[in-house]
């Protein structure tokens, strides 16, 4: 746009613009050279190396750097996508992430495992409904095997009963009971003896877990029970049945 250039451009036939260009060139020529500052003077004198000044990046280099940055982002995104996709196909992602990936893949028609187990191994059985006629609460499974069965009080002689008690001591000697003979009352009050045992917290204290109803059942006292089937717990056969329920 200078001199000859002006006439080659769209100002070719416009003397007004050509005159303006000449005036501007004259003004620029009249412009004084810039005052040299201390830093530039040191460089021009060779006193300071130029590498202390910030590096100049050519416009092309800027574009290359931006392109390189975009390329890095693209590669990183692609690698992440491939990795997440592979893990998603394998169902190896953490549960919530797997569900999200499966949901997104489902949008594009790809069926991926959603992280939920196909077969439940922790299915809890439905609660067993105990018929009303057998409302006796289950016995705890920690009762010692040496729990002595309650013998019918009137059918045992002392010697036989002592033998049984000795056997019981052999099986349940950890109960630490020294007055077994006194506890077993042949006059029909043997259940009271057992009540005392149960109420005395036992040696291992495991019978307390049965709760008051269990104690009532074993004591033969049905006064606190509304279940009519509990009547006649004094029958030693019931005790046998109770023993049989114990594992």
């Amino acid at each position, binding site marked *: *746009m*200078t*001199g000859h*250039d002006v006439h080659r*451009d*769209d*100002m070719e036939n*416009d003397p*007004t*613009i050509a*005159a*303006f*260009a000449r*005036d*501007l*060139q*004259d*003004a*620029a*020529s*009249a*412009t*004084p*050279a*810039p*005052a*040299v*500052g201390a*830093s*530039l003077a040191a*460089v*021009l*004198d*060779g006193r300071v*190396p*130029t*590498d*202390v*000044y*910030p*590096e*100049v990046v*050519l*416009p092309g280099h800027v574009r290359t750097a931006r392109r390189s940055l975009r390329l890095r982002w693209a590669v990183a995104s692609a690698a992440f996508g491939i990795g997440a996709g592979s893990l998603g196909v394998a169902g190896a992602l953490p549960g919530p992430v797997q569900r999200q990936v499966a949901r997104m893949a489902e949008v594009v028609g790809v069926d991926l495992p959603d992280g939920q187990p196909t077969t439940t191994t922790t299915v809890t059985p439905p609660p067993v409904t105990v018929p009303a006629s057998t409302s006796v609460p289950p016995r705890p499974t920690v009762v010692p095997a040496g729990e002595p069965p309650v013998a019918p009080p009137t059918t045992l002689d002392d010697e036989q009963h002592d033998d049984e008690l000795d056997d019981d001591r052999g099986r349940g000697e950890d109960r630490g009971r020294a007055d077994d003979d006194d506890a077993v009352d042949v006059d029909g009050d043997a259940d009271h003896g057992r009540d005392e045992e149960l109420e005395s917290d036992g040696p291992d204290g495991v019978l307390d877990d049965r709760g008051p109803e269990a104690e009532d059942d074993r004591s033969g006292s049905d006064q606190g029970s509304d279940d009519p089937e509990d009547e006649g717990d004094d029958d030693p056969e019931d005790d046998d049945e109770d023993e049989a329920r114990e594992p």
Partner: protein
Amino acid sequence: MPPSGLGEAFDAVLAAARAQEPWAFQRIFDWLGRPVAAYLRGAGVEDPDGTANEVFLRVFGGVARFEGTEGRFRSWVFAIAHNLVIDDRRRRSRRPQAAVLDADEGPSAAAAEDLALVSLGDERIRALLASLPPDQRDVVLLRIVADFSIEDTAAALGKRAGAVKSLQHRATASLRRLLTEEA
């Protein structure tokens, strides 16, 4: 007056500048210092001399990595100058305007631009340039003051040649209208 080129001496000067020879730096400054300062003043930079110093400090700091012809070297130097012009405009646009409510406090951005343009030495030229948008003004300055071609101007401004032609067309249309009204 377009800046006279170094001609055949350019390669030797460039090699010496890469070797950090002070005489080569001085030669480059003598060659391009005045047109760079004129461009900076025409662009309305707040501190033309300080900015011109910064331009050449950056040129000398990066000349060791430069490769190209004399024309490309000139485009590179003006591209650095143009980047500093952009920085100066951004800096002034971020400056709080409340600080210049009192005219005695200091020059506003437009006032600083006017002061720089006044240094061109021609009130009429200053008024005409100030009437142009910055993009058009940059094209006019590079085409006339730096004697750049369309391609050199595009390289210095980081624009496409078609965009530079469009800016120049609009600038000449505006100038033609203003000069006609003036006449």
